[in-house]
Every structure is written in C-alpha cells, then in structure tokens.
C-alpha cells in the first residue's frame, strides 16, 4: 500500500492554552478505514479540518501523495478533486435540491451541465435516493440528508473521504445504514476513509483506530480488517 496522507509534527493551538492538535504525526495508507476516536472537545474535528486544509496548523507539515500543498488554491484543488467531506450537520445548501447539491461540487471538474446531472443522478441512485432528486433538504429526513451529503462527497470520485461525526445527528437505526453505506463505498471503491467519532461502535468498524485525547494520539490500534 502507498502512503496517501502524512502529518508530521502538526500542532494547532487556540487561545489561551487550548491544544486542539498537539505535535501529531501520523501516516495513512491508501484504502485504509481509519477512525479517530475520542471524547467531545478533544480536537478531533480540528485535526480533520487540518487534514483537509480547511484549517492551517500553527506548526508541522502535511503531505498528500508525498506532496506538500501550498496555499489556499492548492488546497481547494485537492479538496475538489481528491477529497470528499461529510459533516455531522450534513451542510447541504438549503435553497438547492438534492440533485443540485451534488451537482455544484462538480463545477470546474465535470464539463457540461447534462454530464453533471447524469453523474449526480447516478450517485443518488447509489445512495438509494433517486426518487428524492428534486427535494430540498428541508423536505428530507436526517438520514436522507446525510446520504445526499455522502453522494456529494463522492461526486468527483475522490481518493479520500473525511467524515466528521457522520452519524452524530441521526438515530441508531439510521446511523447503522449510513455506516453501512460508508463501509460499502470504502470496500467497493477502495476509497480511503477517515471518520472522526466519539462512538465506540463506529470506531469498531474501522480497520485502524486512533484514540485521540487532548490533541494527542494516545493509541494507534488495528481494528477490523
């Protein structure tokens, strides 16, 4: 397996003395399913944001495919082409339909409105929501919104999906379905999956679990193969 993501001595502090990420170094291989598990407020989301270039670390280096991205433009290109992001609160645009929410991620990557629409419909079908294409997020359940968010994350065929508490706003039954979907996608498409969670059951599905407390990785264990 080749190294996809590498963090070297990464730190991020908030005023006055909160160490959200404290000298973290780690390496993630292509095709891994990594769970970053820890209590609320331990800095997991900040670490995920740093991995995606949404937040800049105070110190340290990040490498993707062995290359260190420089600046906002590099990061936005990487996020649009190589990464998918799934948020706890779904973060769909409320004025757009399910289909349009997926399509807007493809601007500048997939040429042609009809091709974007075709791909978005295909993705909706994959997450089982093709019949909800013209519905706005306010007309959808939490589980449906998260499935659309996953479809949006997949839109540009990324190598890596970063999911921040993807089941945090869902009931247990829906959570299971979402996790099943993410796991299936990870296996079928060989997508590297990094999930931040405070729930042990979710972490237990991962092939590797990083226990994260007060900005530090305190353990790195292999989970389910």
């Amino acid at each position: 397996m080749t190294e996809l993501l590498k963090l070297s001595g990464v730190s991020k502090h908030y005023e006055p003395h909160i160490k959200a990420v404290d000298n973290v170094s780690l390496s993630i291989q292509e095709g891994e399913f990594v769970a970053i598990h820890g209590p609320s407020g331990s800095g997991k989301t900040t670490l995920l944001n740093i991995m995606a270039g949404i937040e800049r670390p105070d110190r340290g280096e990040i490498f993707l495919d062995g290359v260190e991205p420089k600046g906002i433009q590099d990061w936005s290109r990487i996020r649009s082409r190589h990464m998918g992001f799934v948020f706890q609160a779904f973060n769909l645009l409320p004025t757009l339909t399910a289909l349009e929410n997926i399509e807007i991620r493809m601007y500048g990557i997939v040429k042609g409105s009809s091709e974007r629409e075709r791909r978005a419909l295909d993705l909706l079908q994959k997450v089982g929501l093709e019949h909800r294409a013209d519905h706005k997020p306010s007309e959808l359940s939490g589980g449906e919104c998260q499935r659309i968010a996953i479809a949006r994350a997949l839109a540009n065929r990324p190598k890596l999906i970063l999911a921040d508490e993807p089941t945090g706003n869902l009931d247990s039954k829906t959570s299971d379905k979402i996790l099943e979907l993410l796991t299936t996608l990870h296996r079928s498409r060989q997508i590297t999956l990094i999930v931040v969670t405070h729930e042990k059951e979710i972490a237990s599905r991962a092939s590797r679990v990083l226990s994260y407390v007060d900005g530090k990785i305190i353990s790195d264990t292999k989970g389910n193969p």
Partner: protein
Amino acid sequence: MYFLELPFKNLSRRPFRAFFTIVGISAAVGSFIGFIGLARGMQGACREILVERGTHIFAYPKGIVDLLGSSLDARLAHEIASVEGVTQVSEELISLMELDTGQIIFVTGWPLQSYLWKGVRLEKGRLPHHLDECAVVLGKNIATALGYDVGTEFAIRGKNFTVVGICKLGPMARNNTIIFPIKLLQELTNRGNKVSAFNIQIESLHDPSAIRRIIGELSKRFPELCFVEGRSVSDNNKMLQIFRAMAWATSVVALFIGLAMIINTLLMSVLERTKEIGILKAIGWHPLRILSMILLEGVLLAACGGIVGTLLGIVGIHWLAQFPQVRGFIYPLVDGGLIMEVVLATFALGLIGSIYPALRAVSLNAAEAIRYK
C-alpha cells in the same frame, strides 16, 4: 444546473430585498436617462435652432452666461457685415416677459428685413410686414398653451399686439417663443438700439479653414464678442454647460445611491450565507468561483435594474414632455449612445458594487464559516 443559475437562485431566496434593490437601481438609472437625455435634448435643440435658421456663426458678448442679460450695440451689425467673407448679419434680442394675463414667456426680436424670418415655417397666417401693425408670430406650442390664434390681440405692459402668424412644429424655442420685429421689442423692453446677439451668414460655409479664418478675423476685430460656429453653439453655451453639469452631478449621485444599495444587499446576503460559503469552500470551490458567484449576483441585480430603469427613463421623460406646462421646454433625446452609456454604467455599477462583498466572501475562514449560526 448551470453555474449561471446559481446567482438567480441566491437572489430569489430574498425576493422582496432583491425587488426593492432593483427598484432602487431602476430609479437611479431612470434618473440618469432622464437628466442626461434632457441635457442632450436641450443641447440638440439649441444646435437645431441655429442650423435651421441658417446661422453659420453666432456672436454674443464674452463672459455672458445668460443671453437674457446680454446687451450689445445694434450698430455693431454693420461693422461685422463689413468683414470679408460675411454675407449677412442679423441682430437678435431675447428676453423673458410677462403677459398682462400673467403668463411668463420667451420673446425674441428680429429686424423685419432679417434673413431669420426665412427659416420660420408658418402653419397659419403670415409674417409681420411693417412696424405700425404691431404684429407678432407665435410658436405653435405657446399659441396652443395660451389659446391664441391668428387675429388674437393681447397685451404686454399695456401695449396691444396682434398675432399674424403661427409657426409650424420645429425646434423647441420656435414653438415657445413670440417673435417680434426687433424695434417693437426694443421699445417694449426699454432697450433702444440694444441687442442680445448677432446671427451671421458667411460665404464659404463648407470650407472649415475659411470658417476658422473668418471667426479669427471677427474675434480680432471685435475682442469683446465671442464668435462660435452655429453647430457648436450648444457646446459653448454656458447655461447648457451648467445644465449639463448639474444633470451629470445629479445622475452620479443617483448612481451612487444605486451602488450603495447593491453593496448593502450583497453584504447582507454574504453575511446571511456565511455558513453556506464556508461549505462551498470546504467542498473545494475555488476562491475565484465564489468571487464570480457574488460578482454575478451584483451584475444580475444591476442588469435587471438597468433594463427596468432604462425603460422607465425613456417612457418617463417622453411622458413628461407631453404636459402642456413643459411642452417644448423639455426636449428629450435618448439615443443609442446614451443607452450604451447606461449599459456600461450599469454593468460597472453591478461589478463595483459587488467587489467588496465578494472579497468578504472569499476571505471568510472556511472552518469558522461552517460553524457560523
């Protein structure tokens, strides 16, 4: 979905705010069209008057802003006529007078033998023949406004005059002026042997160098006078210049108000969409794409306001020009050039108005923006 559809969707989420912003921009653009159209109309009418009457060079006192206040010795006409290349000179007296019935009107006076009478296109009646008949010619608009016809008698400062002719539709001033034989007007205004300006005809009308030479010669011989080619009078007329400057100033103020409305609307919109902009950044939208989305919203608002405002402006000033109180005094001129200026001004308005909000959107920190509530 095309990228261009997004600005529509974004603006339509607050339809009332977008609507009132468009109304504001329309008012600004409408005012621009109205004021500038009127200024150009006045300028065009002024040029048309002199061209129609056959005046090649117009002479008036230097330093005079308002011809109504001009007072020149009528005898200068003979001296001007003696300059080589000048064929005819006609004195002209211009004034504003109050009829005994209370209306205030423009009056102009020409010598009975002046070539200027030849340019008068009569709709009814005839031209004055001699001074004893106290005859005048009325412009069509003023005749309609006053309800006078050929044969009507009226009084100014207790002296009776008879309408012997009514001018056909022509340039603005002709339609709103009472034309007197100059002697009668000089008596009436107590300006014996005084005139406001001279209308000059020359031989070599189509030879620009000859015109320049004659104007140069006249300027040298009569340094107290200003000599301007007939078709350029409107460009040199101080009153028109002031009117034009005021029209521009008012229009610019109106456009600034439109600009402020665009900035305000888009800033509010960006603020409301902080979280959404953060999401777009997080899913990998290039900063330029976010910038162009906001710029397009601004241009779209301005374009809608520009189209409505242009239509309102054109319809508005033509509608106003129909009122009897102003008919003939305002002369709207909205041509392709003005519309092109409006299109460019509106485009610039939208672009400039959206730059700051767009830059604000681009500079948002994605992580903080996503957490924004």
